[in-house]
């Protein structure tokens, strides 16, 4: 065992010395390789964490949201509509939601006005999301006026700001009482925006949706599973675009690496002949080349991955954020919780480390089984 280790150390010594001979070329290759791993790892780490975040946060959202459609457009829920739903078996609770959008000309951003079902603020008071706190400089007990769509100016007192930790879901919220909401938007009495249903048994959700469609043909049930799938698709799609942009770079690197690794120069062939002549076995030569491939590809993988991790989870993925998340006027500030998918990392490892190691070994096999007496001739 000790002998084996000593031999491997010699082989690594040699392979490092031969790499050092083409220093600029090999360092360049290593840098490009590392950068590639870094970019791929950044994208996959980031999108996976974001997908996970969406999935984890939205599990608490209602199982079914019922919208009413009129002529294919989203319309208000009229009085008496809710009662019809109550008869569907499996529905645990139903809550009529009141919410809408308000365009603030000052910040040129849309806010989401919403009436909480429980613990609503008192009349004339609002609770705002953290993005509003930033963009409008709001704090508790400040007053703020919004001009409603009917042209009237409404003044509210900020009762509280939602905690920063919830910003991912609450950045642009403005919570107010039902009375204030209806007055502000001239919302007709007894009408609601949509209805949130909770269903106790997850297996029942599909049935509830089917029964809803049958009982209320103008209802459009939106299932939580669909929502989660949509978010997964959004981030998949963004990841796909980035990867598609990278694919040209990956391909270019593939050609470069293949060229570098598999094209054995006459000089290298001669060296292998010398090594065999002075007593290296074919296996030693192959092991030496194996170490070359492993040293380069492992270094690139480890450095690239660790850099990507730090970039994504400690520097908020500043390089890819605009593409992967999108931009907005009221953008939530949030720290992504690191969720690392082991399978994804293993895949990345497999597809970055092994092809290179293999590309190094293929031509060596041919060269290493040639006769050592070639060095005596020519």
């Amino acid at each position: 065992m000790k002998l084996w280790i000593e031999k491997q150390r010699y082989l690594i010594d040699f392979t490092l010395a031969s790499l050092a001979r083409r220093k600029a070329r090999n360092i360049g290759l290593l840098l490009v390789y590392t950068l590639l791993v870094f970019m791929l790892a950044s994208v996959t780490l980031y999108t996976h964490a974001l997908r996970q975040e969406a999935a984890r946060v939205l599990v608490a959202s209602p199982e079914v949201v019922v919208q009413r459609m009129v002529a294919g457009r989203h319309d208000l829920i009229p009085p008496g509509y809710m009662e019809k739903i109550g008869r569907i078996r499996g529905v645990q609770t139903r809550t009529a939601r009141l919410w809408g959008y308000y365009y603030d000309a000052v910040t040129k951003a849309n806010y989401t006005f919403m009436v909480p079902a429980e613990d609503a603020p008192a009349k004339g008071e609002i609770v705002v999301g953290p993005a509003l706190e930033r963009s409008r400089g709001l704090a508790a007990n400040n007053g703020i006026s919004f001009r409603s769509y009917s042209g009237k100016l409404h003044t509210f007192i900020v009762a509280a700001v939602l905690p920063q930790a919830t910003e991912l879901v609450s950045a642009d919220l403005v919570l107010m009482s039902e009375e204030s909401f209806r007055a502000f938007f001239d919302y007709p009495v007894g009408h609601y925006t949509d209805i949130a249903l909770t269903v106790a048994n997850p297996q029942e959700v599909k049935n509830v949706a089917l029964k809803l469609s049958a009982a209320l043909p103008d209802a459009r049930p939106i299932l939580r599973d669909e929502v989660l799938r949509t978010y997964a698709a959004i981030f998949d799609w963004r990841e796909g675009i980035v990867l598609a942009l990278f694919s040209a770079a990956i391909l270019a690197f593939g050609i470069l690496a293949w060229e570098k690794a598999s094209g054995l120069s006459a000089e290298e062939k001669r060296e292998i002949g010398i090594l065999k002549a002075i007593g290296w076995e074919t296996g030693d030569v192959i092991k030496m080349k194996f170490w070359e491939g492993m040293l380069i590809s492992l270094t690139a993988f480890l450095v690239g991955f660790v850099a990507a991790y730090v970039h994504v989870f400690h520097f908020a993925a500043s390089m890819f954020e605009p593409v992967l998340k999108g931009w907005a006027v009221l953008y939530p500030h949030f720290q992504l919780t690191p969720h690392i998918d082991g399978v994804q990392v293993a895949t990345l490892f497999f597809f970055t480390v092994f092809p290179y190691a293999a590309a190094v070994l293929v031509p060596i096999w041919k060269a290493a089984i040639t006769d050592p007496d070639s060095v005596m001739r020519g």
Partner: protein
Amino acid sequence: MIELSGIRKAFNQGRDNEYWALDGIDLRIAANQVTALRGPSGSGKTTLLTIVGCLSRPTEGRVRLKGGDISGLPERFLTEIRRQRFGFIFQQFNLIKGLTALDNIILPGYPTGRPRHELLARAEELLVGLKLGHRRDAKVEWLSGGEQQRVAICRALINDPELVIADEPTANLDSHLAGEFMGILESLAGQGRTILLTSHDPLVVESNVVQNVVDMRDGKLIQHR
């Protein structure tokens, strides 16, 4: 020490350009002596050297090393024999560029897995013995021809071989350096090593150091002194 019987070696066998480089060689190489193969280029002396040195296998015939037949051994065993028993000094020196003199010298020791400090101490000793200690950390491509050859000699001796094989050792040296080489050869012989070399340089073959001269032509032996 080495017995060759009925050695024939063909290149491109079975093809139009088939060519027999060696055609029936019977030869005994005596232990602890210096033997030189002499002959014009194309006479087959280098080919014979590769067969004795286990770098290639004869097409026909047997090679015996200390009585044991080695011509039929698989590549792995030939490599081991080469590593442990033979040291090679090539005509072109065949040093690995980019490595220092010291690193080149210890290369044949790598597959043995000998501890590095042992190898380095041995290499140092050899370098100093050939008055090259001051060049140990120089890259080999910066060395002069004579220095390169001395590095190659050190490399041949690192595993302490019984047989030293040298192919045209003075072909790339001027008379002064060739003279120095003969001095080294003498000291190697003095250490009791068996030496086999090829040369057509009178300075070598007519020197007192060389005990046996084998003349070759067209792949055959013509005279045995």
